[in-house]
Every structure is written in C-alpha cells, then in structure tokens.
C-alpha cells in the first residue's frame, strides 16, 4: 500500500472527529475547513501528538498505529510545522535547525544544507531566535522540520499567524517546497487562496467529518457537495503559458479545452501554471457575445446545476473540453437564459488569477 491510510475516531466533550481517509503518497494534500472542523486535530492524530483510541494509521504500508501498535511521535519520521513558529528560545537558529537533525538516524547533513538553502535562511544561522521577524521565524521553523529528512511533512496553518505581507513572503518558499520535495505534505488551512495555490489534493472537513475529497480541480468543481467557500467558490485549471502579446502585455494560457488571456506576469512560454477562476467572475450567455469588454469567452456545455449558499443564487458548472468552470448566477437570470444540463453556453470570464 502506498500513501497514507488513516481512520480516527475521537470524542471530546464538545467535539468529535470521525474520519477514514486514503491520501496520495506525493504532493500536497490540503485539509481545508473552518476553525473547529477538526483539521488540526486530525493532523495531530497523524503526528501522534493526539492519541485516538482504536485509531489506524499507515504510511506506505508501515503501521504507525493500529489495535496493537502505537508509535510515539518521536519515533515517527515526520516533520511538523506548528501554527506559531515555536522556536526554542534557548538555542540559536542553527541550534534549532540541528536539534532534530542530530536526533534522526540517517538524516544527512546535506538535508540541513538543503533546508537552509530552500528557505533562504543562510544569513540567520547565528542569530538568536527572539530577534527574528515573524516571517523569518516561520521559515526557520519550516527548515527545522525539513532538516530531519522527514518522510511525511505536516503543516498546521503555517501562515495563519502572519500578516498579508509576511504570507506573500513565505508562499513562494512553500511552492518551491511542494515542487522539490518528494514526500507527501499535509497542509492544514482555512484559506481558499493558500489551498488553490498549494494543494494538489483536497480534503474538505466540517464538524469533524470529511465533506469531500479528491484531486483539487475536481473537488473544487463539485456542486453536489460544495466545499463551502462562499465568495471564494471557484475552480482551478491546470494550464500552460502558450503565447504572449507584447503590445498589450498579455499572456495566453492554454488548458485542455481552451485558452484565456491574462495580464502577463512574466512567466516564460511553456511554463505550467495554475489558473484560478472564481464563480463570481464568470457570467454565461446563450450566444457568442460579439461586443463586450470581456475578452475571454469560452464555449462549453452546461454540465451540472447546483444550489448555492444563498437561495437567490445558483452555481452552474460548464464543461469546456476537459476542463470545468463554475459560474454563479442569480436564479432569475438562470431561468431567463433557460439554463439546463446539456445546453450550450458561452462562459465569459471577467478575471483570472495566475497562481504560479
């Protein structure tokens, strides 16, 4: 068995966790949900910081917990990044980085060098931890977790305690991490933006239970069990930069089924990018709109219609080639257009976010 398999049931006085999951062995799995949804508790169960009686957990077939086995956290080959950096105040930055490394068997010093390089903290090594900025502290904490050469990296909202600017400082490092690490990463977040940027696989949680799970683009496009994103409802397309139009500073991104023009952010032609399209930025038309300020019109077929959070609106999923886009319409305009499954429509995309 490859990947992570886990079953946990935990009853607390005002909360219960009940999950049964199989997670992929590579890439970033986002545990997504509001606070109190149980995502951090689940992560702590996987780390062994929380012990769910009669729980079950394997990594690539290796049993960490079952009826007769219990591996305490310090015997699990994990890296864990807490919400607050939680650096050891009595050690320097280097002391923090070496703490776990010297204790993990078969963790080569090159792992430490790589972690230092990956997080760009070389200049900080001899500093004391209390002089670091919030962003620097969290980068050190991530490097400290990587320096033990973990086989599973667990991250509990590593950006939640940082302001917007610091978040933007760290996100590129996390993207590098995702692209360069060959281990599974489980990333707890309540931020749709972080999930859209970082995740490959999505597990949406609510009240201690799994609401839906699957590959990111697929799961976000599900209407039957909508991941409750509210204003952030939307889809992800895996695309590639196909061409550029220097005169208008635009770049064309191609995805299976069509292409879109977006402001040119300097990504090279041929580079793969994630495109995020929010449901509120998509409108539908019956016929090809000839004169409109919206340049991106994609032809597709209505593939599903689902309820939205507000009773006045509806979510309409449109299949464009192999890709899916979701539009948020009022029920009145959906009725006026006669929206129904199988119908051909033009999806007008007002705004597109290139994520990397």
């Amino acid at each position, binding site marked *: 068995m490859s990947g992570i398999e886990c079953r946990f049931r935990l009853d607390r006085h005002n909360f219960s966790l009940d999950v049964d999951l199989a997670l992929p062995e590579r890439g970033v799995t986002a545990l997504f949900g509001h606070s109190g949804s149980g995502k951090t508790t689940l992560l702590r169960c996987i*780390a*062994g*910081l929380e012990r769910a009686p009669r729980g079950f957990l394997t990594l690539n077939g290796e049993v960490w917990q079952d009826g007769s086995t219990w591996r*305490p*956290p*310090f*015997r699990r080959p*994990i*890296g*864990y990044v*807490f919400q*607050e*950096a*939680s*650096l*050891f*105040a*009595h050690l320097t930055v280097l002391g923090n980085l070496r*703490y*776990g490394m010297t*204790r*993990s068997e078969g963790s080569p010093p090159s792992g430490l060098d790589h972690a230092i390089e990956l997080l760009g903290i070389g200049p900080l090594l001899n500093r004391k931890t209390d002089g670091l900025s919030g962003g620097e502290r969290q980068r050190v904490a991530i490097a*400290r*977790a990587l320096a*033990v050469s973990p086989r599973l990296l667990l991250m509990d909202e590593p950006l939640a305690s940082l302001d917007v600017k610091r978040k933007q400082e760290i996100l590129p490092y996390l993207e590098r991490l995702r692209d360069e690490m060959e281990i599974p990463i489980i990333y707890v977040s309540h931020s749709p933006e972080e999930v859209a940027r970082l995740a490959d696989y999505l597990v949406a949680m609510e009240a201690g239970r799994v609401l839906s799970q699957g590959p990111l683009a697929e799961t976000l496009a599900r209407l039957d069990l909508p991941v409750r994103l509210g204003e952030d409802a939307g889809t992800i397309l895996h695309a590639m930069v196909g061409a550029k139009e220097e005169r208008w500073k635009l770049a064309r991104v191609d995805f299976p089924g069509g292409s879109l023009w977006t402001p040119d952010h300097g990504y090279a032609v041929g580079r793969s990018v994630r495109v995020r399209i929010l449901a509120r930025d998509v409108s539908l038309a019956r016929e090809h709109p000839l004169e409109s300020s919206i340049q991106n019109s994609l032809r597709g077929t209505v593939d599903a219609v689902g309820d939205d959070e507000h009773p006045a609106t509806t979510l309409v999923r449109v299949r464009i080639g192999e890709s899916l886009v979701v539009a948020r319409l009022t029920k009145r305009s959906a009725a006026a257009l006669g929206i129904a499954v199988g119908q051909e429509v033009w999806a007008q995309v007002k705004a597109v976010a290139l994520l990397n």
Partner: protein
Amino acid sequence: MALSPSDLQAIWLTVRLASVVTAILLVLGTPIAWWLARTRTWWKGPIGAVVTLPLVLPPSVLGFYLLLAMGPESVVGKLTQALGIGPLPFTFWGLAVASVVYSLPFMVQPLQAAFEAVGERPLEVAATLRASPMDAFFTVAVPLALPGFVTASILTFVHTVGEFGVVLMIGGNLPGATRVASVQIYDHVQGLEYTEAHRLAAVMLVFSFLVLLALHVWRPKPKRGE
C-alpha cells in the same frame, strides 16, 4: 569584630545543611514540580496541598510529627536502625531530612511555575524532532525553566538557613552536628551574651539581605517556548 570558633562552627554547619538540603531537593523537587505542572488527574489538588503544607504549619507542629516519624519505634526509625544508621533524630542527617520536608514548597512552587510557563508546545516540538520525553525534558524543559531553577535553589537555601523551630524539635542543640546559626543565636540570648548574639544576628541579616537583593536585581526573565 571576630566571631568565636563556636559561631564559625555554627555558620559552617548551617551552610553545609542548606547546601545538602538544596541538593536533595533539586533531585526530589524537580520530578514533583514537573508532575504537578503537567498532570491533569484529580490527585493534583491533594498532592499540591500536601507539598505546600510546610508553608503554613507551625514549625513545631511539623517538627513534632517528624520527630515521631523518625523515632526509634517508628517504621522509619526501625529501618534506619536495621540499616545500621541508627536513629535519625538529634543527628545532622535527621536534621537534613526534616529540612527537606520543611523547605519542600520553596523548591517545588517556583519550579512548578517555571514548568507551567514553558508550556506544552516546546515539548511537542521536541517530540516531532525525534526527542524522547526524557531527552526533551533535559534539553528543552530544563534549559527553558533555568531561571526557575535558580530562584528555587536560592529560596530553598535561604529558607533552610533561616529555620529554627524544626531544628529545635528534631536536632536539639549539639555543637557541630545540629547547632545551626539560628540556634546559636538563641543560645547566646539565653546566656545573656548580647554582644555575641548581635554579631551573629548581623551576619545573618546581611547575608539574607544580600541574597534577596541579588534575586531582585538579577530578575531572571522567564523564557517562553514561543
């Protein structure tokens, strides 16, 4: 101003007793404080109260019970006699045992507060970095709680130096064995040797003041795990 040989003997005995008691309590008090700081069991309340009891009990009451507990007819007394140590009361080690009980809260309480201030998180971090609980205790909890250890040791030492009632009950007044400085002063006063009493009292006063001054000036900053 010269101290007499018997005064010096009493001071030396006092320092020896306080050092021995502080050392024993560091070993004994640390696990108790650690347990009290982290346990969630129902027992935390009663045990915590017992540990704090010497703080409020009259030393004579405490001394009386300890005297009975260590007496030749008691379990402890029979044990020490069987081991060839002999009865503990009116010996240096009997005094040390009694002082350990008497000064227990002065070691445990600052340590418990220091461990509570360190909190759970640094230990969880250490666990995710492959440190066993014992390893994490010595390499994370103890260094982070170091100011607490300093405060607790100083308070224990000073408190043992200052004890009187328990000494009288358990130790009596044997030169070189149980006659500590506070008892020596008492003796001087009983013998109307006010000049000698003044000298020794002044030494005690200055010593205590300097220690407390040091504690206040060098106020250790508690280190947090965050």
